[in-house]
């Protein structure tokens, strides 16, 4: 008798599961949904591994947003393809506000690097972190200023080696952009991550490194590296006495950034709820403290401003990355 019971029971279970799945599958955002949003957990896609800088920013923000939304935000790391796997997953999710994601600078770069990523596929909620690029040389390097380094590059174009975190990274793009902006040329050397790139400069394997401020500032403080310039509008408090590239006569600001977005087509009401929660979370003391301590710069850019920034970034990278091939 027992096999029959098991078969019947599993049949019932399968049916129940099918009904549940069918019920969930076609849940578009209706007007009712928008009114009582959020009525269930929200998933936040991070296209990079747990434990990195992007993940830290996303998780810290999620903790704060939870309190304002009154629901759980579950952070889900979907890695692979230089971030394109997670970004694609986000673009294909339902635009019902229950799936949001972390949008890194790569959102505007990957489209020009052979990946199927388009910033137009996302509704932007806001930008919360900025990671200005820095250029640094080994502590015993003969180059004391950015100008020294540029002069050396002018004398022998394409021989000054500059390490970065990887092929196609924002830091490699910054290296190219620095060459273009100053009429010189550097030799980018891609490593397998930001830390190995910085290590190569500390060890004197390369002439310089271009990396995010949170990666070079600690080594600068330890006297292992000398940061020559920050590619930002203003000098950074974590790099005292280090000028901006603009102050050194090079009109270039560049760097990584991170924001929150959702699949395009978000209902207006839900978007507004998310924007409010975002603004409150990004200006919270808890969030700004963790991001500042990690060495990056917390910002709180509202949706419309973020959208126009993303558009101008996309234009910049189109020019920079398209003429490489």
């Amino acid at each position: 008798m027992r096999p029959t019971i098991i078969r019947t029971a599993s049949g019932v279970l399968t049916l129940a599961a099918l009904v549940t799945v069918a019920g969930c599958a076609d849940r578009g955002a209706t007007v009712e949904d928008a009114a009582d949003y959020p009525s269930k957990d929200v998933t936040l896609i991070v296209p990079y591994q747990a434990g990195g800088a992007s993940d830290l920013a996303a998780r810290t923000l999620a903790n704060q947003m939870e309190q304002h939304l009154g629901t759980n935000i579950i952070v889900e790391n979907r890695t692979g393809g230089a971030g394109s796997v997670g970004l694609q997953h986000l673009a294909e999710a339902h635009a019902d506000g229950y799936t949001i994601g972390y949008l890194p600078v790569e959102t505007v770069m990957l489209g020009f690097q052979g990946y199927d990523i388009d910033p137009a596929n996302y509704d932007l909620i806001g930008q919360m972190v900025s990671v200005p690029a820095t250029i640094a040389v080994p502590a015993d390097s003969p180059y004391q200023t950015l100008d020294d380094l540029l002069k050396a590059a002018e004398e022998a174009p394409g021989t000054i080696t500059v390490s970065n975190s990887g092929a196609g990274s924002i830091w490699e793009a910054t290296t190219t952009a620095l060459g273009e902006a100053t009429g010189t040329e550097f030799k980018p050397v891609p490593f397998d991550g930001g830390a190995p790139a910085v290590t190569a400069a500390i060890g004197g394997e390369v002439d310089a490194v271009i990396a995010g401020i949170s990666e070079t500032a600690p080594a600068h403080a330890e006297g292992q590296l000398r940061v020559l310039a920050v590619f930002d509008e203003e000098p950074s408090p974590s790099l005292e006495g280090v000028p901006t590239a603009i102050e050194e006569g090079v009109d270039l600001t560049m760097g990584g950034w991170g924001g929150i977005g959702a699949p395009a087509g978000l209902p207006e009401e839900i978007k507004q709820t998310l924007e409010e929660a975002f603004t409150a979370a990004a200006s919270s003391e808890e969030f700004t403290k963790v991001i500042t301590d990690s060495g990056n710069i917390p910002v709180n850019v509202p949706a419309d401003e973020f959208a126009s920034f993303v558009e101008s970034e996309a234009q910049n990278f189109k020019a920079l990355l398209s003429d490489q091939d």
Partner: protein
Amino acid sequence: MSPLVAGFSSLLDPTVLSCIALGAVLGMLVGAFPGITATMAVALASGFTLTLDPLPGLAVLLTIYVSSNFGDRVPAILVNTPGTPASIATTFDGYAMAQQGKAGLALTSSAFASAVGTFAGLLLLMFAAIPLSRLALQFGPAEMFALVVFGLTMMIGVSGGRVVKGLMAGAFGLLLGAVGRDPITGDLRFTFGLVELSDGVPFIAAIIGLFGIAEVFDQIITHRSGSSAAPITQFGKWFPTRADWRTMLKPLAVGSGVGGVVGVVPATGGDIAGILAWDQARRVSAHPEKFGKGSLEGLTAADTASNATLGGSTTTSLALGIPGDSVMAVMIGSMIVWGIQPGPSLFTRNPELVYSIAGIMIVATLLALGLSLLRMRSVAKLLDLPRHFLWTIILIFCMVGTYAVNNSIFDVGVMLLFGLVGLFMRRFSIPAGPVVLGLLLGKLAESNLRRALEIGGVSNILTSPIAVAILAVSLLALVLPALRAMRQRRRTTPATPVAE
């Protein structure tokens, strides 16, 4: 010595001790679960520990780091599935021992070897950190390339006497290592339009497939109902005898040395160290022919080395601020948020903290060793299950664990595919070790060679004394055994060929 006392005594806080206990249990579980690595566990835990004070927070993270390197041996020995990549080399001899009915001895010896390795690494951290960190900085792309080439020479060693088949498998592994983005130009290679392959063949999915899944598939197709030959459930004796200890001495020393050095080199970890030490121990062993067929020496060397990397990579991380491996990369991130800046000055600014960290790791090791010895008898019960239940359990655990790596069903597919590949290789007695070696090291060899050439051409490699020395040793490692074999053959030529 007062910083040492101060550092150690700060651990007597009950909060810290309970955090260590929590971390030990978590770490053992995480380690034993195939697919879930120490890096993932520490990364996820760091989200919670950031709200704690630095010392209790570090206690949780460091203990997970240490004890997962005990837990991962269990599935490696019992079901041929490395719990984390650090126990790849454990499967070489550990599973063979289990099949011979020596699972009990394998589990306890592995735990002891892991503990000895951890302590050896920690001695480096406490007493030689600053000079060792200078050595770490010497390893640029040229030196890394040479070291990886040395690693690749072990393909013959891990072939278990089947040299031609081993080299074929190795070439297959190298080819797999070429899949993904070009390390210098960023162009996509051999991805067949699959965006999931652009970061390369998923490593953890591949090793779980090649070892664990292939073993399950193999047992399923060779299983005959009624046959009760299940030697694995006979755990045999548990504790090493005095004679066992004596044979373990040499591999313990080799493992500690290899693991310490590999640990100090940035961005290399327990997986590479285990395989390297296994092969080095084979070269110096009186019974190299037993390696890969259930050698206690091989198991000991592999496990000692992969755990000795813990102290080495902690050294690099604390003394240079450069992550010694992927777990430490996450840990450094947490430390910076806590306001602890790792770097050369940490040892003068805050020496107590260094000793506290070493102390946490010592307590964690003792606890993990205790747990390993305690828990293992209950593990035996699990293996008493009928085979078909056991296969299902292993398959489900492997699938869930592999999915969890990237939240990707694609990885699960890769794992099953590699299970089939592994099954095919087993049936034709092609060793799987060289595939893993090729996949693991091929990518590192290529990217570091290309970087070295970008930086300074061939002369960049030839002018580095370290690189040239390691390359020379690699050449010797290849040529010497061949010469020795030739001489032996000449001496024994008159005799009839030895029967297999």
